[in-house]
């Protein structure tokens, strides 16, 4: 695997992993704040960095059936949200390839 450093973001508002402060995404990359996860409020992001993706699973959510994979912080391995691989319902298709991070698991970092 070799030595690879975490990616460092340059935005003025950066969301990091609550446990280890590793950069995860920029404030500007939020697509929607209107989501809920296991821990309450969650945000939909266009891109995230420094995460590992788990195997895809099919899950029934309030908005219908989706194929998702859990994503965890590369540094501390904590699960921080999930990624949408596939949405079965047409109106939900916009979420494909996008990421959910749970607000409760995030912290503002510099």
């Amino acid at each position, binding site marked *: *695997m*070799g*030595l*690879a*450093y*975490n990616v*460092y973001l340059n935005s003025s508002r950066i969301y990091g992993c609550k446990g280890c402060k590793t950069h995860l995404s920029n404030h500007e990359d939020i697509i929607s704040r209107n989501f809920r996860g296991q821990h309450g409020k969650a945000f939909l992001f266009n891109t995230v960095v420094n995460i590992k993706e788990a195997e895809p699973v099919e899950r029934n959510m309030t908005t219908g059936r989706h194929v998702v994979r859990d994503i965890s912080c590369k540094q501390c391995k904590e699960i921080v949200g999930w990624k949408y691989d596939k949405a079965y319902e047409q109106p939900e298709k916009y979420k494909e390839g996008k990421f959910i991070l749970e607000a409760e698991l995030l912290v503002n970092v510099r």
Partner: protein
Amino acid sequence: MRIENSGVSSQGSAGNGTSSSVKSVETNGNGVASSVRNGSAKPDTGSNSSSFTMLAPPTPKPSYFGHDREEITRIAIQSLVDLGYHRAAAVLEEESEYTLESPEVSEFRTAVLKGQWSKAEELLFGLEINKDYDVNTLLFYMRQQKFLELLEAREVSKALQVLRTELTPLNQSVEKLHSLSSLMMCLDAEDLKSWAGWDGAAGLSRQHLLSELSSKWTPKIPLNVKQAQISKCLYHNTANSPSLYSDHKCDRNQFPLATVQVLKDHSDEVWFVQFSNDGTRLATSSKDNTVIIWDLEGFEPIHIFKEHLNHVTCVKWSPDDTRLLSCSTDTKAKLWDTRTGECIRTLAAHTDWVSSCAWAPDGLTFVTGSVDREMILWDLDGRDIHRWAGSRIYDLVITPDGQRLAAICTQQKLHVYNFVTREKEYELSLDCELTCISVSKDSRHLLINMSPGEQEAHLPDIETGEVVLLDIETAEVIRRFSGQKQRKYMIRNCFGGADENFVVSGSEDSNVYIWHKENGTLVETLPGHAGMVNCVAWNPANPHMFASAGDDHDVRMWAYDFPNDPPLPNMLRRR
């Protein structure tokens, strides 16, 4: 005898300007004095405007073993002068009608060397100056020398006058003027010399000035015989000058192409490897959180340092080999006694992964770099003496002459600092992910690994990286070596061979890549590792040995396989 004028062509193909050809003359060991003696004949005999007195030979003569007669003759004349055979040189000049130097040039040279500035300025206008250069630039160089010499002689008011009435009107850079005027604050001549990086009227400064100036008016004939032979010898691995009587060639069989030993004691990926300065030991660091010091006689571990709580990114031997620094993703750096194996100090000021470290050449201080945006200068007692903040550092080096600190950061930039004053000299955007920086023994060149980085999904997947050789003084790229595969990981490089004739790099495709430094040819790609090659290091005391560290947990020792006469008999013991 093979004499090639390849100095010109190889430099030219590398995309260098005039300044680097001046440098190449100096590297040939001819020194400044000979480089300024390179005159030039006007090839156009009909031109009356020539300020040179000599004429081209009356009839074109056949070439000499395929080489230009004029070039060969000039080289001969110059060699005679260099060897002190002035009468023979004069006879050859007379007979061949090639002269090295016109009387005007010679007069100008004398004036500069004697510090006769007004005479030199007068003569300057009589010389044929390359149209690409502004006369004011040349005048500025000369007047700057005059100004410094006046300051050196403590004639401060005269110096001020030169600054105001002679230097300022030339409309050169305001920054230069500011830095010159700041030198007026120097207390004495010694102070002045150290601030200006200038060695005084009695030193070599006038000769340097002359070589700077002379590059602007005559096409040079670099005396590149030796260099030409080396640049054609693919496996050149000796520090001795090749003989001029035969075509020189080093034997591939004597090049370290064979794995003679595999060191297997790490239990995870090996990320860094470095030989001790005396070449008797090896230090390796690993993802398994340990550092191992190996004895190169028997290839056994002497010490295993287990105190880091996370992966060890980098290790560096102190100049006297009694200490070792290690950097870790546990945010700490540690200082070890290499004889007792004891951890002497833990340096705990960084707040993120410590990526890199380097020793000052006196061994009394060292610098650690981290992705926490800081580089810290420490003394041996673990006191933090200075901090450079702002960039997230991937790797750093201190030049062996102790003059500069160079670092690469996450923002694809090279940062160069004056290590004495700690001021920043420049930064350079290289527009590529940078993964490693090395410095040459002569402190003049940097070697930087560049990775295309991770591509957006819709773009074609590029994974071929480049190693660039940079002039640290001018920040110019001298040469690019391409081939090694890298995209995501910290792949390291090193200079290699007896006279640093090679450039070596690890690669994500599990090969070791070796290029010829002078001509840029890929000499070898060596398979052997069963995973990425993270780091390579050449033995500073034995040009026939290098080491590579891989994701396969192995450290491979490379040497040449000599069936009848094993160079290191005990090397094969633990194979």
